């Protein structure tokens, strides 16, 4: 039996439950909203399902904790006003965070987890408080001191009245709805409901949504997790009308699994789902567009064979339009709303505020801005870094803040906006801000810049000194107010995505970090160039202009290579020299092409042997270890199968200057 199939399913469904639970808790915790039955029922349901799934996977600790929270919501449901009990939302969120960590451990291969006795005791104390004192949140002291294993004190029953849970098995139920039945889809829905009453439905084919849309051929297959014996489940099915036949088989799970990892519960680092759900309408669009592609390909072929240029031109134009449309449709599917990574960001900030004892209110806006999944996945770590820096180093402790006349709770806002094909993320805190003067002093002292270079730096460039590798270590030892470890990594990751970051700050008032990212990384428009005998690609978004210049306008000076343009000198570099392609280096022809780009704020010229064409490329990120090469931002395949490396011009210029 293939456990990994169930593990993936368990992990993705567990995460979904926890995410949705978090959203529901958010609704509960909003001041001013009347507590309502629906979120409480949903929350009960989420932990109930999680308990069942975890039990069938053999994850006792996850199941026990989920069970405790399920009982908690069962208790709260009896009197909805209990939902506004003080500290309730924090307690449940703590449980969610712990469960997320355990689910992540499970995803990494752990099969046992440390018992969460303290947390369970807290939950049970809350339950006892609701049962006993009729709603007082602090609860009886006796209940709070009780560990789950010992006998319950007389005042609180804390859930020990329930019979112990039997381990759950997974059953595969295949049912056939009577073809003569009216509304067979609705019959199938009733089957699902009945099965839900004796266990937890892990998957169903078709799913409820499909049934509601009328997609049902009469056969329903359900994977059910249940502690009940097979006979009991069969009896439940027998009670249903219009089921003409059914089969229930128990899926035997191995009782032993080799323990591959230690049982430590790590902080959850969830990744994006590796499968996606797309509306079936999208698939239909693809098919339509594919049909057009086939049609116009045919016409184009015929036109070429009959040497009819006009017809070929028309077919080509139609084909191009269809390709553009297909590309848009595919790209749209790759887009995920920013909302997807919000729970992780919230979790990181919550964990850190607990650890540091600081008070921080995180507000995230623009969560429905959609980004390419690849971009989203890449920015999670950098954003977490930036948020943690804000909490750890930027925002002061409550006492210090009050002494400064600030609110004791720090404000941290993250705003996502979209402008054309770029996405902006703006992170603002009202903490200490960055002190440019002290940063520059440190940089000079540690030898990152000379005093003369320091003089020439703009305030923006001074702040960016904090992103030099090695700077943060130096800074930490001298305890200068600024940012902690990791800013160089953040910058690298952002720039690897063809993004940019910059700071704005006022000392003592706060810091704004702005990230500018592409909407998608997948396809770029690029110039294919040749230099030193090799072929490279230059993104056209970077190259502002291309032009032919004469060899005489290139000037070699002490300070480097320059291009004479009108009456100014523009810094220049030869691509082949910058990449040390000495073997293929040839003297530049009388007239040779340059691509003009911006290195920071400086116009710079890149000299190449030839510019072959301009076309679109599907970018593939360079994997390890090639991604250490800062001169390249990715690779792409040409039509003839050749691989071209995509040049990162600003980095190329820095490398050349450094050499």
């Amino acid at each position: 039996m293939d456990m990994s199939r169930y593990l993936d399913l368990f992990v993705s469904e567990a995460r979904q439950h926890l995410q949705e639970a978090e959203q529901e808790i958010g609704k509960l915790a909003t001041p001013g909203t009347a507590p309502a039955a629906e979120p409480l029922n949903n929350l009960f349901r989420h932990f109930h399902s999680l308990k069942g799934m975890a039990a069938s996977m053999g994850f006792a600790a996850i199941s026990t904790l989920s069970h405790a929270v399920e009982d908690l919501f069962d208790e709260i449901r009896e009197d909805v006003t209990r939902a506004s009990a003080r500290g309730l939302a924090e307690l449940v969120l703590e449980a969610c965070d712990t469960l997320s960590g355990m689910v992540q451990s499970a995803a990494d291969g752990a099969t046992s987890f440390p018992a969460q006795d303290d947390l369970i005791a807290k939950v049970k104390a809350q339950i006892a408080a609701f049962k006993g004192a009729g709603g007082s949140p602090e609860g009886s002291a006796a209940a709070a001191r009780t560990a789950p294993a010992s006998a319950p004190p007389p005042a609180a029953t804390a859930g020990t009245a329930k019979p112990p849970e039997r381990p759950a098995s997974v059953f595969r139920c295949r049912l056939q709805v009577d073809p003569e039945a009216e509304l067979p889809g609705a019959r199938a829905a009733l089957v699902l409901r009945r099965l839900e009453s004796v266990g937890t439905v892990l998957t169903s084919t078709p799913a409820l949504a499909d049934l509601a849309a009328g997609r049902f051929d009469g056969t329903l297959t359900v994977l059910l997790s249940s502690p009940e014996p097979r006979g009991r489940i069969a009896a439940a099915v027998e009670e249903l009308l219009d089921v003409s036949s059914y089969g229930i088989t128990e899926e035997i799970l191995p009782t032993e699994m080799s323990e591959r990892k230690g049982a430590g519960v790590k902080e959850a680092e969830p990744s994006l789902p590796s499968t996606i759900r797309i509306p079936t309408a999208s698939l239909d669009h693809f098919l339509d567009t594919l049909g057009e592609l086939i049609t116009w390909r045919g016409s184009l072929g015929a036109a070429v064979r009959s040497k009819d240029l006009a017809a070929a031109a028309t077919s080509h134009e139609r084909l191009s339009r269809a390709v553009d449309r297909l590309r848009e449709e595919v790209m749209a599917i790759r887009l995920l709303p920013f909302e997807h990574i919000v729970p992780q960001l919230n979790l990181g900030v919550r964990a850190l505020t607990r650890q540091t004892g600081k008070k921080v209110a995180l507000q995230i806006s623009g969560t429905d801005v959609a980004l390419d999944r690849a971009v989203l996945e890449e920015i999670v770590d950098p954003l977490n870094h930036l948020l943690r820096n804000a909490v750890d180093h930027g925002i002061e402790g409550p006492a210090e803040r009050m002494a400064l006349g600030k609110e004791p709770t720090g404000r941290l806002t993250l705003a996502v906006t979209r402008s054309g094909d770029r996405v902006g993320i703006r992170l603002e805190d009202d903490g200490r801000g960055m002190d440019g003067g002290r940063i520059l002093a440190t940089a000079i002292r540690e030898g990152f810049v000379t005093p003369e270079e320091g003089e020439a730096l703009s305030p923006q460039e001074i702040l960016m000194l904090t992103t030099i590798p090695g700077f943060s270590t130096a800074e930490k030892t001298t305890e200068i107010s600024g940012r902690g470890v990791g800013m160089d990594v953040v910058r690298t990751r952002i720039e690897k995505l063809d993004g940019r970051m910059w700071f704005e700050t006022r000392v003592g008032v706060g810091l704004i970090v702005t990230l500018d990212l592409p909407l998608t990384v997948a396809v770029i428009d690029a110039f294919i160039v040749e230099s030193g005998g090799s072929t490279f690609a230059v993104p056209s978004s970077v190259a502002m202009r291309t032009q032919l210049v004469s060899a005489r306008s290139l000037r070699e000076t002490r300070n480097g290579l320059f291009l004479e343009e009108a009456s100014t000198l523009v810094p220049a570099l030869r691509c082949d020299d910058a990449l040390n392609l000495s073997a293929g280096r040839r003297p530049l022809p009388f007239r040779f092409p340059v691509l003009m780009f911006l290195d920071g704020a400086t116009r710079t010229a890149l000299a190449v042997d030839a510019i072959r064409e301009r076309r679109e490329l599907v970018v593939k990120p360079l994997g390890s270890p090639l991604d250490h090469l800062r001169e390249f931002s990715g690779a792409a395949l040409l039509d003839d199968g050749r691989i071209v490396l995509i040049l990162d011009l600003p980095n190329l210029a820095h490398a050349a200057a450094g050499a």
Partner: protein
Amino acid sequence: MAIRVLVVDDALYMRTMIRDILTNCGRYEVVGEASNGREAVERYLELKPDLVTMDIVMPELDGIEATREILSRNPSAAIVMCSALGQEALVIESITAGAKDFIVKPFTPDKVIKVVDNVLKGS
């Protein structure tokens, strides 16, 4: 002792037909009627019947909402939806909301009795 039923439908014709079917069976007694969802909830709370037959499309409050409200007061209420042809999605929504079974109009007496018998057998 006869099983007490509340019949809900905005058409008098429908309510009469269901009443006749249930009464002729002998085991059921129609103790009340309602012509919209709002009335359905009120009468339910007054009469506390053993079973409700609920039309889906009605003015004021539809059958699905009425089902939800009744179930929120009494989670073990037995509600059977009466749907017209072509309303499968609505029936499924009702089931998700907690309805225990359904019958499709136009119905035969056997069908109705078979379904209501089955619903109450379970409880």
